[in-house]
């Protein structure tokens, strides 16, 4: 019997505003504990929330990118429960009137486009960070109150692969919209999933299992694939699936029981009485959407139209928003778009990969890349000189023109000098002209190689090539 998996994903995204959702404490990651705390974040009596305008703008951008119906009035509710990481004893969220409803996102699976419907998107706030030791736990309130955007799908996802593609698409959207860095590894994007299976053709949903502790996009796919297998095997053996929460064990690559689901917790939701409803004008909403940085599809269209570089190269450059931005910066200075792309892909990316770094950690000024590409285009230096200079540029973030001078890397451009050397090579290898005329093009390359050897690689390759061909033809 074949089973169909019915999967829903709930994603929390930390918004990269400068201050927190309801307080003005700085929204900074990885700081010394309890140094980014405002009065409200520690829930001192009498403190009150104030809604962050930029957090709303960013949420509107995501809502728009996900084709949601936007509610133009902001309402907030309290989700009441007690936990060590919840200072107020409640979380301010948008339970009954989320900022966006009924949207979708499109992913590509097996060559086809599939629509994943999104039920809701709303704003809420993050909790404290806890550090656990053997006999005690420590609370850091820096993260308490950080703005979160929660995105909940309809159960349209059917496989681990679809889930992965969905989350990748979300990450693409939030990074391109400059709303979050979307990194699961550092907690700025978190996913929980729920999954049930049912025989194909059956409408009734199976028992839902919740899976948590997914620390990477790869984990999401693995966890769901495992769950589908586990639940299928269970049902085939006649053992019913238990409604529970499981966590993904990264070591074993399996899901394990975390807790058996008891009755749903009663959060006693009611309207947050310390925030009067806020009407968002049409202008405010439109402005938030119109000032959204280019999303992927818009960039793809623009790169194709304005730069005319190879599609595969565009896709590489767009794989990371920051990489695309860096390219835009370089491209400002010159029109050798394909060369810049080539250079970035072969040289910049390879250094980054080698050092396991991200383009945001690449300290070279875009204009230097340009200058280097320019030198290569004008054949003022050859490619091996180019590589050497690039190393220095990366090390010191100085203009390649400086290193060009230092290396004395002035190419030998003088035709007569080069001609003399070519003639020397031909004299040493008298069969070459005949070989060349007989169609053996290897001869050309051989002479070039010898010329470079004799000039320590300083011969201008363009000039040399021209002269070599002329000489060999003689």
């Amino acid at each position: 019997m074949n089973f169909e998996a019915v999967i829903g994903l709930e994603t929390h995204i930390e918004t990269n505003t400068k201050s927190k959702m309801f307080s003005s404490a700085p929204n900074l990651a990885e700081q010394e504990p309890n140094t980014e705390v405002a009065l409200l974040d520690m829930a001192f009596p009498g403190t009150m929330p104030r809604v962050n305008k930029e957090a709303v703008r960013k949420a509107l951008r995501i809502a728009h990118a996900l084709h949601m119906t936007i509610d133009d009035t902001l309402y907030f509710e309290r989700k009441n429960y007690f936990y060590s990481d919840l200072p107020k004893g409640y979380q301010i969220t948008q339970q009954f009137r989320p900022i966006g409803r009924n949207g979708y996102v499109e992913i590509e699976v097996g060559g086809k486009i599939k629509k994943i419907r999104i039920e809701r998107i709303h704003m809420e706030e993050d909790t404290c960070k806890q550090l656990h030791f053997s006999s005690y736990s420590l609370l850091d309130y820096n993260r308490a109150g950080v703005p979160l955007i929660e995105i909940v799908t309809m159960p349209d996802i059917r496989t681990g692969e679809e889930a992965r593609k969905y989350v990748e698409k979300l990450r693409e959207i939030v990074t391109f919209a400059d709303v979050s860095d979307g990194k699961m590894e550092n907690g700025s994007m978190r996913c929980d999933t729920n999954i049930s299976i049912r025989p194909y053709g059956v409408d009734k949903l199976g028992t839902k299992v919740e899976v948590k502790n997914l620390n990477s996009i790869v984990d999401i796919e693995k966890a769901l694939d495992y769950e589908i297998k586990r639940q299928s095997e269970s049902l085939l053996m006649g053992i019913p699936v238990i409604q529970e929460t499981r966590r993904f064990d990264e070591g074993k690559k399996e899901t394990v029981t975390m807790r058996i689901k008891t009755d749903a917790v009663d959060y006693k939701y009611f309207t947050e009485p310390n925030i009067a409803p806020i009407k968002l004008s049409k202008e405010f909403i439109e402005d938030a959407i119109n000032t959204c940085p280019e999303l992927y599809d818009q960039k793809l269209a623009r790169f194709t139209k304005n730069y005319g570089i190879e599609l595969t190269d565009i896709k590489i450059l767009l794989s990371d928003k920051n990489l695309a931005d860096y390219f835009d910066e370089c491209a400002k200075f010159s029109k050798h778009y394909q060369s810049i792309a080539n250079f970035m892909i072969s040289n910049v990316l390879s250094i980054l990969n080698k050092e396991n770094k991200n383009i945001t950690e690449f300290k070279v000024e875009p204009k230097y890349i340009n200058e280097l590409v320019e030198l290569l285009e004008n054949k003022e230096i050859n490619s091996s000189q180019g590589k050497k200079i690039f190393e220095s540029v990366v090390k010191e973030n100085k203009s390649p023109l400086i290193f060009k001078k230092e290396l004395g890397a002035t190419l030998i451009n003088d035709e007569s000098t080069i001609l003399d050397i070519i003639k020397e090579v031909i004299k040493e290898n008298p069969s070459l002209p005949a070989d060349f005329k007989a169609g053996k093009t290897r001869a050309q390359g051989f002479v070039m190689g010898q010329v470079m050897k004799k000039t320590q690689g300083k011969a201008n390759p363009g000039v040399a090539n021209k002269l070599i061909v002329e000489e060999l033809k003689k």
Partner: protein
Amino acid sequence: MNYLDKTIVEIHEALLSKKVSVLELTKEALKRAHENSDNAFELILDESAIKKATELDKLPVPKDNYFFGIPYVAKDSFSTKGIETTGSSNILNGYIPLFDATVIKYLNDANAVLIAKATLDELAMGGTGTTGHKGITYNPYDASHEHMVGGSSCGSAVSVAAGVVPFSLGSDTGDSVRKPANNVGLVGMKPTWGLISRYGLFPFAPSLDHVGYFTKSVEDSALALNLLSKRDDNDATNTYHKRDDYFKEVSKDIKGKKIAVIKEISTSIKDPVLAKKFDESIEFLKGKGAVVDMVSMDATLLSTIYPAYFIISCAEATSNNANLDGIKFGPNYGGNTYQEVMYNSRTRGFSPLIKRRFVIGSYSLMSDNQHDLFLRAQKARHMIVDAFNEVFKKYDAIYLLAAPKTAPKFNEASDKLSDTYLLADNYLAFGNFGGFPSMTLPLGFKDGMPFGVNITSKPFDEKDVFDIGLALEDFTNLKGLDINMKHGEDK
């Protein structure tokens, strides 16, 4: 006669003409605070008050700042920076706020002198003045301590009634300023919801909470509103509505004002002395050109004011006090798990009365019950507010006795809910439901105990409240009333 016995307006005059100094006023206020036997104070701030007063006497008295040099008291649910603030609850013993509540800041910036924090019913949840962690607060008009001052702003009420200060800050969620004002003959004002910033005030039920305050005259009350109602971004429910110059615009001229007396509430009052005086006051108002009508409302609806208030406030309170867990502030008794830490702190820190209130609140929010209890109470609130708004369509103000009698005795009322439910004793919460501006002021005396009237108007119509109150002072002759003032007796 001491200048401290005067109203703010009069004290200001005396300061301007150098008849008295800030230090003299402050020292006298502190002396009276220490001598007071009504258990009205959590903390008396001698050192800081004297320091501030000394500094202020070096400065010229600004003509237009009436609060300069005025000693005042704040209910101990207003956060005061560097000064312990407990909400009269053991759960906050030792808690020292890092910031001032906005209204405290406004008063301090105006150079008023904070001389003490006043007792309250624990966390403002009560109406008898008996549940604060320092014990019972008494009514200064009864040396035998048999009569209550009421609550929850008991200490603040006493501080002005006993002549310790001419102004004190309180809060009003159901009637916590306007009822004690009745019991001690003060002008107790609760303006429109959202007019005064609640930032820094310990929340009880934010959709009902208002900052309120006590003065001895209507003029002083209008003055205070000018200072306290300044718009504050820190409170996201603080209105952008235009503020008037309430003091400058208050006027005794009430010709043509239309005033409604709610029949069902008024006729439920059986005390002949109070009823007679009330009727006489109505004749007085008519004599001044006001139109005063008996207006009937649905008695069933009116009788649900208190139950609906009770459910809504208890429910909201459970959430507002969920931050009190001994972890970030307040006594930490330890435990084996974090739940035990919270549990120990809350079990030991909360008094029995508010625990019962919390349980009722928790019960009415449970998903099984929410529909029948909490949501229905909110629906009732809607209908009650609509009904009063109907009255306000035709009338400028509603005028009633503030309570069916003078201050109850302790053995008559208890903190337990009782069967004997009087409409006239439990209607003031409608002012919180609809955010209506509402003021109690003294009307007369019976057997040595004061009793008062309440004037309520529609949102942002403070002027009608103040004008009618100002006019009434000519009838009552109780302007400036405190314990030291000679007054008549009604029979």
